[in-house]
């Protein structure tokens, strides 16, 4: 049983460090100029970080097990969702169609396995 102290240690330390991360450059660059190299690199932060977050949740069917094939419902659903996001730039449509595709693929694969 995890004690309250352990929970609160995590909550308070991570909470503070998260806030410091979020504040970091905002506080610092209020007083200094940002080096041009840093400015150029920043443009790529969202694309790189968001991809790094999304990809593992989609291509690994279990921790350590790569399943980057059309037989993986998550891969198909993510591909379709990406196409929807590309065309519509609509977050709700992306998530809705992504989930529906996932359920459809899971059902189809379940049915195929039973047959």
């Amino acid at each position, binding site marked *: 049983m*995890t004690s*309250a102290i*352990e929970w*609160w*240690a*995590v*909550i308070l*330390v*991570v*909470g503070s*460090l*998260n*806030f410091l*991360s*979020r*504040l*970091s*450059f*905002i*506080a*610092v*660059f*209020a007083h200094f100029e*940002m080096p041009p190299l*840093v400015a*150029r*690199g*920043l*443009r*790529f*932060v*969202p*694309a*790189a*970080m*968001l*991809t*790094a*977050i*999304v*990809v*593992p949740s989609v*291509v*690994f069917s279990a921790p*350590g097990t790569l399943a980057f094939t059309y037989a993986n419902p*998550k891969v198909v*659903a*993510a591909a379709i*969702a*990406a196409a929807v*996001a590309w065309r519509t*730039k609509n*977050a*709700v449509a*992306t*998530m809705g169609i*992504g*989930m529906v595709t996932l*359920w459809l693929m*899971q059902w189809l694969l379940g049915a195929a396995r039973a047959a």
Partner: protein
Amino acid sequence: MIFSRLDFVAGVRDMTPPLIGLAPFGLVCGVGAQSAGASPWEALGLSALMFSGAAQILAAQLIAAGAPVAVTILTCVVVGLRFLMYSAAMAPHLKALPTRWRHALAFLLTDQAFAAGIRRFRETGDTRNGASYFLGTGVLLWTTWQVTCFAGYWLGNVIPVAWSLDFVVPLCFLALLVPTLEDGSTRVAAVAAGIAVVALDALPMRLSLICAGVIGIAAGMLAEARRGSS
């Protein structure tokens, strides 16, 4: 005065539709906290103070697995390192604001708020406009986040596992990712990061995440430099 009611309301209004998709994400975080054995106050601390879905899910998983507190803290902080980068991207736009505003907006700096805020700043180039808009976005997100995490915590086992509701989490981030892929070099950055995060998956404490991010950024900068010189 910095605060512009018009832009604040615009921020709230624009972020309202995406909440429909964000709500399941919050529910998943609340469910995770409950199944990891968090008390109601601890669950509230997770959503209100940590205020990061990715970190909340990780913390719940690691604590439930009995990981040492130091490991849990370190992993959550590593996942949150992307906030350093959001902070750096936002910094030039917030330069002119009073300290109080900078701190408030920094606290509200999440993936969704960043995406919406940075776009507004780039479109309008106006500090008052962007800051008020960002505040509206952030306040709406923070409040809704508390509500959905809380709901997930109490509803917990009511939601069947078969629904695969946790897939909304990558979908949520995917919806944010695609609009950023506006040119060749950013796409290179994304592809590089995607390959790296899979290749480095065996690294402990989710270090693959921050390494892949850095590799992606480097790849993007290289692609941009080559494009410029040819």
